[in-house]
């Protein structure tokens, strides 16, 4: 009875629409969605690219800034307890090298936007006065170059380490058994619970790739490749009465520094392609996220709110005050 009534009303409505040739609201809604999607379709890659470019430095910088929290205890210095742990400490001075982050205080929350505003206004008026901002560009570029080399080399070095750890991890699971890779023994040894039944593997490759038995030559080459980041150059410099230095340089440091140097030189002297600007931007944000911290959520909220107001002022109100066009294309 009810279903009959329902079908009758639907029949009547469709008959109505067929006669009057007007579309129902749902169809209109779908139609407008389809129309707008088609309109923005050429811009979707741009916007996706924008979103991913913004998320990438935040994600990587935030993860790189992790260090021992105050609720955890310091690891004891008896790292060299057992031989099996040798494979785990990549770097003896890893803990000592973590940089202290610069914290921001509530008073910074006030000073920051004021200072930024003055800088922005100052730059704007200098640009207007100079007509041709060439010299200003040159000066600022070389000023940024030093920090640029440092930050890009850091980004590239960490990227290389991530790629290396993806190809040659120190632990992996295959077929339900966890293996620990020991580079000195050149074996991947199964971890305790299954150690008795399963034999250690000879290939340095992880997971299912280790099941392939490679010829001895290739195996040796792969193990050597795996060791490359650990082979550090220890440089000791002693200039009498002035300075003594002992630093460790790894191949990834050298390579990343060389590439960063080349990139910055190219940027400053030859051309400024958009992807190089982006690379430098990534480097700057990646490094800044590891060096700066708002200390507490309250201070951070204060800083963000202050800059929120600053941003509104500088984009909208300067239009009113200075008749500055909002969008010059």
């Amino acid at each position, binding site marked *: 009875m009810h279903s009959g009534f329902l079908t009758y009303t639907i029949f009547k409505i469709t008959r109505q629409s067929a006669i009057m040739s007007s579309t129902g609201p749902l169809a209109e809604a779908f139609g407008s969605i389809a129309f707008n999607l088609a309109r923005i379709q050429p811009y979707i890659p741009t916007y996706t690219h924008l979103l991913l470019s913004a998320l990438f430095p935040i994600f990587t910088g935030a993860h790189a800034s992790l260090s021992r929290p105050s609720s955890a205890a310091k690891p004891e210095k008896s790292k*060299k307890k057992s031989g099996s742990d040798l494979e785990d400490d990549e770097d003896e001075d890893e803990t000592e090298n973590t940089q202290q982050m610069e914290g921001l205080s509530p008073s910074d929350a006030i000073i920051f936007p004021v200072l930024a505003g003055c800088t922005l206004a100052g730059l704007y008026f200098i640009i207007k006065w100079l007509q041709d901002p060439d010299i200003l560009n040159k000066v600022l570029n070389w000023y940024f170059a030093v920090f640029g080399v440092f930050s890009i080399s850091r980004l590239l070095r960490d990227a290389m380490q991530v790629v290396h750890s993806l190809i040659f991890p120190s632990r992996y699971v295959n077929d339900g058994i966890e293996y620990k890779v020991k580079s000195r023994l050149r074996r991947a040894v199964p971890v305790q619970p299954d150690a008795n039944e399963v034999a250690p593997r000879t290939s340095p490759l992880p997971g299912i790739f280790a099941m392939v038995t490679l010829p001895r030559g290739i195996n040796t080459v792969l193990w050597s490749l795996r060791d490359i980041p650990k*082979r550090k150059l220890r440089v000791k410099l002693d200039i009498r009465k002035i300075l003594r230095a002992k630093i460790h340089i790894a191949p990834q440091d050298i390579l990343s520094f060389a590439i960063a140097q080349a990139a910055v030189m190219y940027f400053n002297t030859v051309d400024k392609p958009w992807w190089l600007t982006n690379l430098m931007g990534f480097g700057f944000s990646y490094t800044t996220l590891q060096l700066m911290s708002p200390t507490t959520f309250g201070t951070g909220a204060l800083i963000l709110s202050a800059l929120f107001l600053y941003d509104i002022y500088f984009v909208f109100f300067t239009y009113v005050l200075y008749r500055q066009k909002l969008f010059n294309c």
Partner: protein
Amino acid sequence: MMVTVAKSLDVPIKLLIPRPTEIDEETGEEKPQKHAMLGLGDIVLPGIMIGLALRFDLFLFYLRKQKKVAVSPKDKDSSENSIETKSEEYVSVLGRWGEHYWTRSQPTVFFPYRRSRKDVMNNDATRFPKVYFIASMGGYVTGMIATLFAMHVSDHAQPALLYLVPGVLLSLFFTAVFRSEFGLMWNYSEAVVDSDEHKKEGSETDPLKNKSIFSMARQKRQMEKIESSISDSIEIVELSDDSAQKVENISSTERKEDEKIEKEQQKPSFFSIDENQHVIFLSVTMSPSSYVANEKELERRHKAIEKDDSDNEIDSLSSDEAPILGNKTNIDITTSKKDAVEPAGKRRRVK
């Protein structure tokens, strides 16, 4: 104002995203490339908040691992056991991407065996729940989509922070309120606790004063921090007298005592060389590789490790002086007054 500055200055203070090229209707050629711009401030400023959220997640992870342990009283007077909170040792979570990928829980074609998520979380000390991080990232993405929407509809530049700040802050706020952790979140601080050295010097004890980046006290503290952090690598020697004379100098009796204590504790000196012999000493050495010449050596190492778990084989395998078969990777460049003196411990003995 902002747009003019951002466009005129070619400095990398922004990200440039290429827009789709349009074709000029009259000439049929492509118009010059336009770019969408995003200032670095719009990435860094919410980014420091998101970074703080991630560190807060790690903090909470270790906080939940803290246990109350009954400790026997140190002084014999009190008969009660005092209860202390014992914190878990920190395991570094950096650089674990490869491990996480190759030991993860989802079953795939390559990993038919499924480890339950609980199993992974409980056994792997390097994974921790990232609730606040994901929440703030979600807030950031929402804000960014709102910015893009506003920019597309209005066809002029939008202040991205206008949408990002409420996105990030509100998402963090609501996550904390829903999880009833707002007090923890508000009180969480990353301020470094002053070490004992600072207390001795009688520096200002008020933690809030002079914490600003722009204060002079801050500059001093920064210099101290930099000095302490690089003192392991670099030592700036005083420019005054010869080291031999310094020892007899009364004002530097402390240094003399330090040297004595060093020798007593058998702490290795900065260089294991005689410093007075050289004007400039530069040494570049490569750490030993784990390359083995043949199978026999590998077997020997296997047996050495399996036999004794004591410290002996640690010394033989990990120290600089480990014998390397066939490899001589030492490069010594010394300009010394007395060339005949060979610094001890620099040559590798090839056995």
